[in-house]
């Protein structure tokens, strides 16, 4: 037997759970404190937003909501590594990435509040909206990347799936497409250990999820998804590679879902308490604060100021959400097609008629 191909999966971490820099090579971003502080601020804002969104659902002011608690480093790391002209294809909880890219908090609330207008969001107009059918967004990112390649544009696409989503054909076919067409894209796996109630180990007996990229011969690594510096560095270099025409990469970010799956879920039915307690030790915000503090870049006063600002910003967003004009019954028809087909006109008229009857 001769060996015809060999593959390694490496693991990248810079910031230990204690907030210490580890490893021999220190990326320059680790001492760019202005940047890191602004990232820290966005992480805290995101977490403040998240708690408020859950509260809105609990008090009947919003629908089901998917919390991002614990994912702040990986989500914002992706956002910070991307350029505006790149295309982002999220699943449904990457608000951190989206805030970095200019999506407004009120728009996120509007979406989960059952209003399509939330997906007509601020931020890059070419970005994809939230995607519920698991993993299908990976193919959209691949299609976008193929467009960039065909048009000779220096742009790349980034898709995100979860540990669960990494089992679905669409993700696996996207890896294959990325390989076959040498697409400028980055396929992120945000492995938060759970797919609703199904634990990571039931998705695959593979040692890593990153190794799914080996199927297409793509460079594939694991990063500590609670370490902003590692995520940022990995995504940044994968994007550089993509835009240099060297093809796609797979990055598995290891993190943990500190919340229920969504507000419709009750994780206590299936998740051991001690697992959750343990995971909290590794969470990303604490770690970043420790690092900044140890570097003399952060203190309690700044922290308190920040919490105050975040609260206000989130409150303003909530007001914007709650005060939005209600949608119209005609909206149901008016965005289906560029031009309303004949047979829908009658239905639209009838909907208006019934609306008027019920109002008066």
């Amino acid at each position, binding site marked *: 037997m001769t060996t015809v191909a060999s593959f390694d999966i490496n693991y990248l971490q810079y910031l230990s759970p204690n907030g210490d820099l580890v490893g021999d090579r220190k990326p320059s971003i680790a001492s760019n404190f202005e940047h890191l502080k602004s990232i820290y601020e966005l992480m805290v804002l995101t977490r403040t937003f998240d708690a408020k969104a859950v509260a809105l659902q609990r008090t009947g002011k919003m629908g*089901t909501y998917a919390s991002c608690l614990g994912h702040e480093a990986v989500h914002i790391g992706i956002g910070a590594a991307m350029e505006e002209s790149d295309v982002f294809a999220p699943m449904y909880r990457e608000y951190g990435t989206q805030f970095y890219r200019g999506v407004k908090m009120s728009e996120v609330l509007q979406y989960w509040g059952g209003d*399509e207008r939330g997906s007509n969001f601020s931020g890059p107009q070419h970005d994809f909206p939230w995607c519920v*059918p698991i993993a299908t967004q990976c193919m959209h990112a691949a299609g976008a990347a193929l467009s960039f390649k065909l048009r000779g544009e220096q742009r790349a696409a980034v898709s995100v799936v979860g540990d669960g989503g990494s089992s679905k054909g669409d993700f696996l076919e996207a890896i294959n497409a990325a390989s076959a067409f040498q697409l400028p894209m980055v396929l992120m796996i945000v492995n938060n250990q759970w797919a609703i109630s199904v634990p990571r180990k039931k*998705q695959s007996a593979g040692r890593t999820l990153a190794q799914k990229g080996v199927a297409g011969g793509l460079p594939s690594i694991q990063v500590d998804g609670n370490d902003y510096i590692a995520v940022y560095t990995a995504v940044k270099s994968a994007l550089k590679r993509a835009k240099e025409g060297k093809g796609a990469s797979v990055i598995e970010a290891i993190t943990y879902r500190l919340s229920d799956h969504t507000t419709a879920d009750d994780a206590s039915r299936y998740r051991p308490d001690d697992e959750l307690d343990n995971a909290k030790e590794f969470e990303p915000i604490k770690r970043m604060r420790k690092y900044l503090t140890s570097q003399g870049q952060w203190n309690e006063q700044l922290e308190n100021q920040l919490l105050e600002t975040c609260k206000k910003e989130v409150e303003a967003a909530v007001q914007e959400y709650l005060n939005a004009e209600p949608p119209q019954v005609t909206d149901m028809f008016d965005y*289906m097609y560029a031009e309303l087909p004949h*047979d829908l006109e009658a239905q639209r008229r009838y909907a208006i008629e019934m609306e008027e*009857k019920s109002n008066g």
Partner: protein
Amino acid sequence: MAKVTMVEAVTMALAHELKNDKDVVILGEDVGINGGVFRATNGLAQTFGEDRVIDTPLAEAMIAGLTVGMATQGMKPIAEAQFMGFIYPMVEQIICHAARFRNRTRGRLTCPLVIRAPYGGGIHAPEHHSESTEAMFAHMPGIRVVIPSSPSRAYGLLLAAIRNPDPVLFLEPKRVYHLNKEEVEDDGEEYPLDMCYVLREGTDVTLVSWGAMMKETLEAADKLEAQGVSVEVIDVATISPLDMDTIHESVAKTGRCVIVQEAARHCGVASEIAANLADQGLYDLHAPVKRVTGYDTVMPLFKMEMKYMPSTARILDTVNKVLEVS
């Protein structure tokens, strides 16, 4: 005898067959320890073991394909699509394989499987959680499509679906999962898979519906009765095969028919029923056959979903038009 909701009746039927038939296994996303996102498999993994109630990786094409493979080898798998909106990756396996193995092999390999899916809107759920595309599946030869609308029918029809030697798509109208409680005896009695249910007899107009829309249909019937209109109400229950005999018989009596369907109108199941009336039932009709349906638009996010779905008011509006015809 316990009073149970529809979703509890589903669990009861599943438990009954898991106990009675060792070839029965359940598989799907979150069906195990969690008991399914609607708790339809609540407690089953704990009672029957994780070898009988199996959490799968997140991949619906895989779930369907495994199910087909198992069924051809003598198992009786019951797969869950977590929501009907996520059933589409299963379509290839359903239409190309589940529906065909018996015919393809002249009976050598068969596919005694059930695919369960909660379906329909009205529960304030996110995008893709409110689908009702039963017509797509009703168009496929070789697979039965069954939709209960009450706890007892859920129990009896699901038992029949599991025991049926051919594939069955079992759609559970989740909006009424908890609507009513009914006394349902866990006696293992199955219901026929090719029969409509006449829920109320009447002589002036026939209302036909299925699934969650039975709620509004029955509400409309109540209001009409209060106005002195005699309404016959039919729950189709088995969309495919369709028991047109019962519907024809009713329309022969009433001369008027309104069909209520949650799904989009174009090429829906209501169209099939109306088409049959335009053929075999034409001479019975005293008035146009009207359909009250979802619009031919995408089911909106939940702020507008109740405006999309047929309301009692829309049913009444339509029935009144049909009654005006002399």
